């Protein structure tokens, strides 16, 4: 048991920052993130003897956190944003090049945005889309790890990530325009 506890500390604790950040972004509250991360670690420790050695402990921990978030945390707060994937797809896939000025991407328009503005735009994405973008672009998971974590095919991870970035772009584009960072000709 002592060895198991030491192994748990060695395997699981190094991922705490990644889990905490993810929890923070999913819940939007440091108190809720604290509770969620603590609950995740206690559950993980309880079932650590079931953890298959040599597999990805970080992904295993994230899966526990995600399940805790869905089963425990979210039940007690509010229903998640319902996403109609077809609607999202139709809307964001149909943004044409004529609708968006590519020179906005060349200019350093987004450098003018505050980090908080970017974080707020990210937080406003529907949960499933926010999840993949955080896991990929903040936490650096591979598609395979994300697929394992959210329990869906790699193709879904890829399409969701594609749409998530486009949604984020659209939100930031509007935001930058409102702030006057973009002058439409």
């Amino acid at each position: 048991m002592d060895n198991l506890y030491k192994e748990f500390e060695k395997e699981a604790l190094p991922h705490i920052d990644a889990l905490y950040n993810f929890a923070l972004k999913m819940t939007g509250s440091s108190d809720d993130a604290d509770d969620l991360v603590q609950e995740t670690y206690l559950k993980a420790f309880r079932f650590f003897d079931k953890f298959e050695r040599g597999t990805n402990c970080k992904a295993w921990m994230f899966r526990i956190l995600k399940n805790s978030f869905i089963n425990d945390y979210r039940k007690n707060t509010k229903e998640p944003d319902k996403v109609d994937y077809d609607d999202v797809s139709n809307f964001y896939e149909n943004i044409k090049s004529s609708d968006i000025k590519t020179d906005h991407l060349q200019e350093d328009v987004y450098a003018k945005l505050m980090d908080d503005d970017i974080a707020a735009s990210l937080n406003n994405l529907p949960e499933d889309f926010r999840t993949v973008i955080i896991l990929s672009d903040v936490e650096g998971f591979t598609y395979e790890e994300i697929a394992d974590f959210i329990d869906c095919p790699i193709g879904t991870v890829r399409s969701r990530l594609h749409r998530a970035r486009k949604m984020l772009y659209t939100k930031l584009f509007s935001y930058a325009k409102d702030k006057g960072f973009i002058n439409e000709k």
Partner: protein
Amino acid sequence: MMEDKNKILYDITSYVDKEALTEKERQYVKKQIDESPELQLEYNIQKSMKNLVSARITRAKTPAYLIDNIVSKTSDTSKRTKQQSFINGIKEFLFTPKYALGIASILILLTIAYSVFNIPPDGGIKTPNLFVQAENNFASIIAGDLKPQKLCSNAGEVKEFFRSAGVAYATIVPEFKEWNIIGAVVSDEQGQKLAHHVYSDDSGKLIYVYQVNKAHLTSNKLVELSPEIYDNLMSNNVVKFEAHDHSTFLFRHVENVFALVTNDDDTKIEKRFIENLINSNTI
């Protein structure tokens, strides 16, 4: 057509992420991007958003109090699980002759290991073998590796078990209101049968008692104590060792020498357990 369009769009995402594409596919996607302003835009959106999020979404540091809480709670859970494992073992009453042999083997091995490596238990006092055995046995109990040979709930049962298992000296097994006897083991140390029993309180704190006849301390190398400790015990001193998660006491009463290891409050053990035992006439 829509499927084809989506495929190239998603391939662009894979291209940006350097994922899920063969080299040949990557070259094909790059060619498509280079040739189409619309796909160039898609590529720029994907790349710029990825870079923006990576660079600008700040990662918070986990608060120290949260790490402390988690370490503390998992550590507590670990200890409770270990104790529960021992108590469950007692409840299941696993009597196996093979196990009895295992205990003796473990004890001898650990004693030898201690002597060879000369691990200082207290930072100075010479190796007390009764002490080392007791500490190791307590750790094994906590770890759930050492299970009782006999489920007992009162002193009479324990003493009868000791006698029937070949313990050749009078044993002292007091009863207390706040600690319940939960199990007993007899080990074989160089042909001598030696007595061990365990108490638990309602919160799961354990008291492990290993008792030998004082003659064993000079006749059996496996329990022999250093001259300093032996002299202290013969002078009726209680020798105490403190660790961060348990305390070990060595003391003598009548003809027997005891090694007691506990994770309960050490002052309570001294005042309510050891003093009562020493003042009792229970033999």
